[in-house]
Every structure is written in C-alpha cells, then in structure tokens.
C-alpha cells in the first residue's frame, strides 16, 4: 500500500491536480454535508442567481445523512450515501468552484467531464463504515436547512478523514480500472 496523501481543505487546483485514481487521501479541515434535498435547494438558488448559504470555492461536499449524535458526541454514524442522485446538480457546483465530492458509486459522464474541465476530484469513502468514519469528525454544526433533519447542510471539522480517489482531474475512473484489473473470463 502506498502512503496516504494528507490534504487540508479548502483545496486549490494544485492540490487536486496531483491526485491520481486509487490514491489514499487523509482530509483535514472543513467538509460540508449535502444530499439530494440540499442539492436541489442550492441548485434552485444558483438558477435564480441568488446567494448560496455556503461559499463553494475550494470546498469539499460530503454526501452524508448522519444518525443523531448521542449525548457528548459531535455526530452519529456518518458514512457516504450513493452519489448518482447528486449528478444532475454537481456540474454547475463544480463550475462555481467546488473542488471535491465524497460519496460512493458511479458518477455520470457530465460530472466526470466537469471535474476534468474545472479541476475537481471525486473521492470514495467506505460505504457502510459510518461508525468508523465518524471517528474522524470532531465537530458538526448545522449551517443551512435545519428543517431537512438528517439532510440539513452541516459544517464538519475533520481530522485525517480517509478517502480514496475515484475520479481524478484527467478523467480517469477507479471503478473502470478496478474491473479491468480483476475481471476474469
């Protein structure tokens, strides 16, 4: 196993350009959470030309709807949700400066093209490892849409949050490469 790459958010073009599919990355700093419902609202604001509740420049969005925090804990279990449901909204957000997305599962051609054009990456976190991933989250605050409950936008502070690069800025795809390497006749 290669050594993990440590990155601190917000990310610059140089940070993401050096990443390749399969790289293990440990993210520290701030991540914003968002799922379908929050993306829909952000997208409506973008289309209406209104200001967003969060500045997307250099940021990383984590597709997660955590469980309620137990007393004394910053957050409950917090693993990734499936990303394709965010595909219709992501290209526009990448154009506005979003540098990273964390989720699981395939992205559309439009999202992969936007990542290539505007220099952004898609990270995978281990699905179903919500209890383990929550260990890297030190603080969580709701910053928008509290009415959405688990789907509200949260500002997470993370330390060495473990992810793997699925799509890099060159248009490569770990899912396709993985199958090429391990598929048998």
């Amino acid at each position: 196993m290669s050594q993990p790459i440590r990155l601190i958010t917000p990310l610059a073009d140089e940070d993401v350009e050096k990443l390749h599919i399969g790289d293990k990355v440990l993210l520290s700093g701030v991540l914003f959470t968002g799922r379908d419902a929050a993306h829909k609202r952000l997208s409506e604001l973008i289309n209406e030309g209104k200001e967003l509740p969060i500045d997307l420049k250099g940021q990383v969005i984590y597709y997660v709807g955590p469980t309620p925090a137990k007393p004394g804990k910053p957050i409950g279990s917090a693993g990734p949700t499936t990303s394709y449901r965010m595909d219709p909204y992501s290209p526009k957000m990448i154009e506005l400066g979003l540098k990273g997305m964390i989720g699981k599962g395939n992205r559309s051609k439009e999202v992969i093209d936007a990542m290539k054009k505007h220099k952004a990456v898609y990270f995978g976190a281990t699905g179903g490892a919500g209890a383990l991933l929550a260990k890297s989250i030190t603080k969580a605050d709701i910053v928008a849409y509290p009415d959405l409950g688990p789907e509200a936008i949260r500002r997470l502070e993370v330390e060495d949050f473990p992810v793997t690069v699925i799509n890099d800025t060159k248009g490569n795809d770990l899912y396709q490469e993985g199958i090429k390497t391990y598929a048998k006749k």
Partner: protein
Amino acid sequence: MTRQISVDEITSVVKQLCIDANYNLVEDVLSALDKAIEEEESPTAREVLKELIENATIAQQEKVPICQDCGLAVIFAEIGQDVHFTGGDLKEAINEGIRQGYNDGYLRKSACHPITRKNTGDNTPAIIHLDIVPGDRVKITVAPKGGGSENMSRVTMLTPAVGMEGIAEFVVNRVREAGSNPCPPTIIGIGVGGTFERSAILAKKALLRSLGQRNPDPELAKIEEDILARIKKLGIGPMGYGGTTTSLDVFLEMEPCHIASLPVAINIQCHAARHKEAVI
C-alpha cells in the same frame, strides 16, 4: 387453547430488535468478511474489508449504528393461529416499537413522502409482512433495509423459455450494472416464481438466511454456488475498487408460477445485513 399476548410486549420486542439489529452486525457476516480477507486478491480491497470489520467492532462497543442508513423497518411476523392479541392494534403496536427504537436508539429516520420528500419523523410506517402459522407462538424478525442496495434491486417477468440460464444471466447482469452503488461486498437474494409481488417477497425472505446456508434442494444449492462464482469473476470488488470479493453469498428461493410466466426478483443487500429475531 388460545394464548393471550399483550400488544405492549410486541412493542417492547420490536424496539429492542431495531436497536440490536442496527448496532450489532450478525456473526456470520463477520466470519465471511474474515474469510474474504484471506481470499481477496486486491490489497486495496483487503483494506476495505478490514475497515468493515473495524467498523462493526466500533459500532458494537460504542453502541452506535453500523451504518448511518438505519433503513426502512421491514418486519416479518409469524403469528401462531392460537394467539389472541390483547390491549390494542397489532400493527400500531409494531409501529410504536419502531418509533421508540429509532428514537431511543439514536437511529436515523429515513421514511419520507414519495413526492414531497417530507420525512415522517419517526421512521414509520414499518413495512409489515404478517403470516399465520400453526401453534401459539409469535416470531418477529426486524430487518431494517438501507436505500442504497434496495435501489439496485429489480423485479422482472422473464420469458419461460430462457430457463435457469436466463435467470442466472439476469442476476449476474444486474450485479454488474449495480457496480459500486450497493456498497459491495453484497449478499444476493433471488426469488423465482409465484407472481409479480410474490417473487419480490421471496427474494427479500431469502436474505434472512445465514451466510453459507444453502437451499435444501441440492439442485438449487448448486445454482446458488454457480451464480456466486460468476459474480466473483466480475472483478467489481469491495466498494467497486476492483477485486474478487463482490458478493459474500447468493440465496435463491423458488415457488411454482403461472404457466405463462417466469417472475424473477433480485434483492441486493449490502454487508450490513441487519436481521434480528425473537420468539414470544
């Protein structure tokens, strides 16, 4: 003789099972993950499998959910025909158990209106499958089901001429198309026969088996093994990062169907195969 059971007892049992199922990964999955680490060819995949075991350990020790998607609450209840429920409405008692379990257990509530997407707030209504059986006991299984793997599941009505090979091809293609989305390594439930809706229930019930438990019919058991071997060759691997561990097991249930039909359902389950049962 009729046996009286208070519905309050049902509520209490359902509550406990919701919490138990979400915090404690079943032993057979843990053993299967251990075995998969030994057999897996990809080093990245082995790391992922180790993470899943570590995650299960943390969830159990800290009493937190294995996965943030605590699922829709699917309930199978086998009710002895000599049982008489007292003190209220049985289905409402089950829903009350869900309400209490998901609230007190700090579990995520994922039930929402299909169009407005407004959350119902307490993870009800439960998906309840009732069955009447001989005897005076009640067996309750709580099997919370996550959305990611459920979204990759399908029901189809095949042409009878395609036979067993057609069924296997449909299943393997579905696993290929699902790819990384259902959080592999997965467990595959297949329901063949019955009607449109019956095939889906058979597929879901198949997922209640313990890993390694083959269909008692030797021919069907062999088909389960064959399909698993074909899935292994797809190369999808844990989380879709590439590897030989794509599914941990395949369970097939079969029943007679209409002379014109061949209903087939595939229900995909992620490694967090949550199902806990109790007999009252």
